[in-house]
Structures are given as C-alpha cells and as structure tokens.
C-alpha cells in the first residue's frame, strides 16, 4: 500500500522543509518515494501544496484524487482548499490554526471563514482531524512560530497519522539541517510529547 501525504501551507518554506523531512525519513525506512515539489510561485504567497508518497513501489508523483492518507496543513484555509485529494474513508487532517489572511480577502473585503466553518467544510472529507494552534504555541513555548510545522510532524508521528518512526524523522532532520539540527529536533520532540 502506498501512503499519501499532502502538505499545504502558505509561503513555501515550511511546506518544502516538511516534505523534504517526510521524504527523507521514508527513504531511510527503505520505502520507494515519489512526490512533487513545485517551486515556481510557492515563495510568493501562493497556495501550492507538495505531495509525498511512499510504499513498496510508487508510480505517479501526484496523489490521485481522494487518495490522500494525511493532509498536513500549515494554515487552515489551505486545509480546506485541497479536499479534492481527501476522502472520509481514508484521510486524516492535521491543521495549524494559525491563519494567514490572503491579500485579496483584504482588498475585496472577503471574510476569512471561521474555524467552525472550516471544520464543517473539511468534515465530509475527513476520517479524523486535529486542529492545533501550532505556530502560536511554538512562538510562546519555543520562541519561534516557524517551528510550528516541525512540532506538527511530532504530533503526526505520535498519533500514528504519519506512519514513520521518530528515529527516522530525527535522522532526516539531521541530514537536512546538518549545521544546527537541535532547534528542529527540539520542536519535533515537543510535538511528540505534546498534550493539550
């Protein structure tokens, strides 16, 4: 069976970093890995998700429709945007509730939907979902809101939503940020052990 992770967010860096960690960790565990990493306009506030797929042998780089096992969203609107890939029999969502209101919502006075509304949008597509104010918590507890995605990786591994070993993730972090892995490992462990 192939395990399909869709990583969504705003701004690019957190999304790319997370997908690199997941892909490396899966590789360390001997899986065949495929996926997408669209660079393009991702950096300029666009909403471009990455796909990471791992299993015995994977073909398409894109997750087929309704076959995501995990939607890992670093921003709540972006969780709702990619329901195309989700299905209630299969898909878990883990969502950072820290919102980034799009410029165009400001310009044209469009409402940013409430969390309740976003939850309602997601539920027909979700087997299970976890909403967590990760960036905010990391800002307060670890001093950097940008640790939110790494903390969420910890939560996803601890809850079984991401079926990879914590040792593989730590190895992947060390490989990805060899100069200073401690900051990310700390955020990851913080997520692993996090209790509300």
């Amino acid at each position, binding site marked *: 069976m192939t395990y399909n992770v869709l990583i969504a967010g*705003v701004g690019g860096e957190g999304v790319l970093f997370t*997908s690199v960690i997941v*892909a*490396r960790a*899966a*590789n360390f565990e001997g*899986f*065949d*890995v*495929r*996926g*997408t*990493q*669209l*660079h*393009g*306009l991702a*950096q*300029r*506030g*666009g*909403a471009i998700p990455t796909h*990471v797929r791992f299993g015995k042998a994977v*073909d*398409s*780089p*894109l997750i*087929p*429709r*309704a076959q995501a096992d995990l939607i890992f969203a670093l921003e709540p*609107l*972006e969780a*709702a*945007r990619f*329901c*195309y890939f989700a*299905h209630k029999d299969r898909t878990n969502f883990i969502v950072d509730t820290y919102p*980034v*209101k*799009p*410029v*165009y*919502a*400001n*310009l*044209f*006075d*469009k*409402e*940013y*939907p409430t969390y309740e509304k976003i939850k309602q*949008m997601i539920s*027909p*597509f979700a087997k299970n979902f976890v909403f967590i104010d990760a*960036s905010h918590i990391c*800002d307060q507890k670890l001093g950097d*809101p940008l640790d939110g995605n790494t903390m969420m990786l910890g939560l996803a591994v601890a809850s079984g939503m991401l079926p990879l070993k914590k040792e593989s993730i730590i190895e992947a972090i060390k*490989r990805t940020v*060899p100069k200073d892995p401690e900051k990310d490992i700390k955020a990851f462990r913080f997520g692993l052990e996090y209790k509300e």
Partner: protein
Amino acid sequence: MANPDLMEKEGKKVVLLGNEAIARGAIEAGMGLSACYPGTPSSEVGIALSAIAKQAGFYFEWSTNEKVAYEVAAGAAFSGVRALTAMKHFGLNVAIDSVMPTIYTGVKGGLVIMVSDDPLGHSSAQSEQDTRFYARMGLIPTLEPTNAQECKDLTKLAFEISEKHRIPVMLRTTTMVSHSIGTVKLGKIPQPKTKGNFVKDPESFYCLPPALQQLHERLNKKIDTIELAYDYLNRIEGEGKIGIITSGVSYQYLKEVKKDLNGLKGVKIAKLVMTYPISRSFVTKFLKGLDRVFVLEELEPVVEQFVRALAKDVNPRTEIHGKDILSRIGEYNPETIQSALAPFLKAKKPDFSMHEAYLKKIDLPARKAVLCPGCPHRSTFYAVKKVMGDQTVWSGDIGCYVLGIQEPYKMEDFIVSMGSSIGLAHGIQKVSDQKVVVFIGDSTFFHAGMPPLVNSVAHGTKPIIVILDNGVTAMTGHQPHPGSDFTGMGDKKEPIKIEDVVRSFGIANIKIVNAFSQKELQAAIKEMSASDKLGVIISRGLCRLYMRRLLRKQGGEFSKFQVAPGKCKKCLTCVKQFACPAIMHEGDKVYIREDLCWGCGVCAQVCPVGAIIPAARRKKNDV
C-alpha cells in the same frame, strides 16, 4: 543550501528532485563545465550544480542569457570537455539560433541541452510551448525521462550518445518530471575532465556552402544511425490487441491507474524514451496486429502524428486515438488518463459526484501569488502610479514584478518575453503620443534589455524606463546576474553597474533612487515625466526575500512596524492601494501582523496621517 545527497556514494538510494537527479547524472558523466540561465521549471538543475561545483571540481556559471549559456557550453564541448546547459522552454527560443548550426557542426565532448516545458504554466506566463517541435526542426536527438531515476540515468546516457555521435543531445522534461521527487539509486562519480583543447577542424566547423550541404548530409546520416542504435531504450510491456504509446510523466500516470483499468489486461504499452528520432522499426513492430492504439502525450499531438503517418503503411486498419479524447491544453493527472481510457477498456469511469457536490459548496477566498512583504517592486509601483496616474501605458516585462499585473496595481499592460518591454514601448511611441512607462528587472535588462535600449536611443523615442534593480534574479530563486556581487561558484565579484551600461549608450538622463524611499522615487518620476528626453530611473533596493535569507543565516530578523493605536483614520490607503500582505483589515481594525512584516517601512511613508510607526525590537541583532 546544497542537498547533501547530491554527492552521496555509489550504490546509495536517496530521494532527489528530478532536476537534482539531472545534476547528479551530469556529475556521474564527468561533466567539466555547466553554464545556465535560470528559468523554472529548469532552475534547480543549475541551483544544484552551482551549490556543489567547487566540491565536485567542475566549472559553473549563471550566464547572461540562455543563448550565451549554450554558447559557453558548446565552446567547452568544441574543446573536448563534457558540458551541460539547462533552461526552460522559452530559453530555448533565445538559444536556438546557436543551437541549429552546432547540430550541423557537431561537438567533440558530450553536450547536453536540458529543456523543461511547463504545461499549465505553473511558473510560466507566456505560452504553453511544446519544445518537441524544436527537436524536429533542428534534428536534435531527444530523450525524455519519466521519473527522477531516469532523469539521472538518461542525462548520463545523453552525454554518451552526444560524444559517440558528436552531436548535441536534448533532455526534455516537463514540470511534473523536473519538479517531482523520487528514489534514485546512485552511480559512480568519476573525476571530472575540466581541461580541453580546441583542435582546428575545418571539415566539421566550416559550415559555409557548399560544405554546409555536406554537413547536412552527415547530420542526416547521424540521425539515421541514432534512430537504429537506441531502439533498445524504448520498452514494450504487456500483450494484447490494444496498444498505448506514451512517454514522459503520462507513463507514470498510466501505471498508477492500471488497477482501475482492469489491470490493463489485453493492453500492450510502448514507452518511448527517445522521442526524436522516433524509431520507425520499433513503432512498426508495435503496431502490427493491433486493433486500436492510444497515444498519451501532454500538449501537441507530436507522437500521434508520427504514429498516424506510419500506421498508414504498416497497419492501416488500426484505429488511432489521441487528441480526440485528451486535451492539448494544460497538463494531465492520473484521473484524466483514467477517464479517457475507461470507456475503451470496459472499465468503470470513476464516480466522484458526491465528492464534486461537496467541493462545489466550498467557497474559499483565493490565494494568488503576491509580491512579498517589503518587496522593493511594490514601493516602486506605488510611487509611479501616484505620479503618473492610471492612463499611462505600462510596458511590462518578466520577473517578480509580473505580479504587478494584479489588483490593486494593474501596472503591466502586457507581458511578452524577457526584454520585450523596451522594444514594445518604442513601437507604441512611434505610432501614438501616449506616455509609456517601462518596468524591467535588472536580470532581464542584462538578459535581453540592452539591444532594444540602444535601438530606442538610435531611433529616438522617449519612454520612461524604470529598471527594478534588486540585485539578483529573484523570481527563479535569487541567482546572480552580471550586476550582482557574487558568482555562480559562490565567489565575490565586482558588480557591473547598470548606470555605467546605460550611460555608455549615450543616455545622460539617469536617476538612481532608493527603492524604499517614496520621496526619492516620486521626485525622480516627476522630473522624468516633465523632461522631453528618454529617461532611465534605476530603482535600487535589495530583494527583500533574499535579504531575509541572508539575515536569518546570521540569526537576525527585520525590525517591525505597527499601526499606532488611536491614530489610524481608517482611510485604508495601506490596505487597498499599497496592499502589503502583512497589513490586515478586519472589522474596523487595521493592524500589521508582526510575524509577516519584513520591516521595509514604506507603509509608514504612504500612510497620510502618520499612523504607522516602528514597533519595539525583539532581539539585539534585528535590523
């Protein structure tokens, strides 16, 4: 930051981006030189090579444009050194004038041209170009990988084919190959051969008639030889009366949906790896005995037309499908392939009606790409509009500033090709009396902006030319250009100053302004607007995203701005006209998100009541 896996040992399995795998393939081929110009979806080939050039021991540069990059690589290959250039499809339009003759002359060392198409235009605004036509026009042998492993292996093979047959070879990808990741088993890295020697060879290099015709004949023979010699690369899978011919990422999608298409029982698949020249004997053999054939390829029916022509002779009764069931527009995905084939393979069409109905109900605010917070271009656009109003013709060009096309600025009336803004402005002014303002980036200026500027001077039109000098080629990932202070090998260098170049064309009317100062910008534009001479404004301010990366490497951050409580009069100038993504408007509150603010302070200059002020510093080393 270089991906450490790029230099991993032979035999290791690592995950690489398609483009990184191409870079690794070049290293495994012992490439001695690479010259590129960035263009997504090809940029990461150069980015990867740039990051490891020193460690791996080859030469790398970001050249001024793709034509120059190709010539640099060809010069190395003329001298017996293996060389690679990578570019996006539009880059090949720029380079093609030098590519065509070198296919005739041939090379001594292997020469690989990596070109990436971008169906759907993930990172391309200008057209959905299908580069495979160039292979046919220029008689360029072309290989097409379907995944990251093949990206590596076929790059290596492309060097071997090129060197053996003494002809440049193209490696063509699409976005979903270049930008997909995959497990790659690595091969051996040899010592790169970086030293060559140009040996005079009039028989190959003197391409004047009548020698030209002899070279043409030699070329035709090479292509015939290559067609037969690499037949073995194409593969046949399965057996049956129905055939599917495919290449590139479509092959991967087909494999993915195999289980939903009755396991493709009774179906024979031909995977084409060399898509020019296509092996006639391979396709002939494949077509024999088939009732029906499907050709799966994104964009134009290039392979389909080849198959149709051949089928007339070898199996005229075969029914051929391709663009009658699949689009020429955009890109495919597993579902498009499944839906197109299902009716013919007696498989169920996927039913997502419930899913569709739910999706329809979701109405989300769009999140389009925008200029970064603190982007110098936003400040420049704002100032120009303030002075020039809405009626000016905005002659646009290619770079991050294409985002100025969007609300609320709408300050690129057209976007054609790199460097086109100045020639178009000249043409407009020759036939109308309108005011024209040109926006052109620094990298674009060096790439293709200099010839049209000389032309404007020589033929006397007077647009206002705003050169957006942010120090790097920002859009594609902050590569250096001739005006940057570093090289593709990471060394420091003296920047070539745009003002010196412009002055040398005989233009005296030049203003250099700080892109983050509304006062300086607006004063310069007023002055230029009143002048009756061609004017150049160089709006200089480092790309904010690039600056932020440099800063964060040193553990610093930008200091922030805030809306002073009680002072804001809710005029919404900062929200609706300046439109920085860090400035929020909710209910009757206007505020700046500290985590999104990159501290340029331009909003404080545009606020008419002075309500925006610096926020308290968080850390000592913040700037």
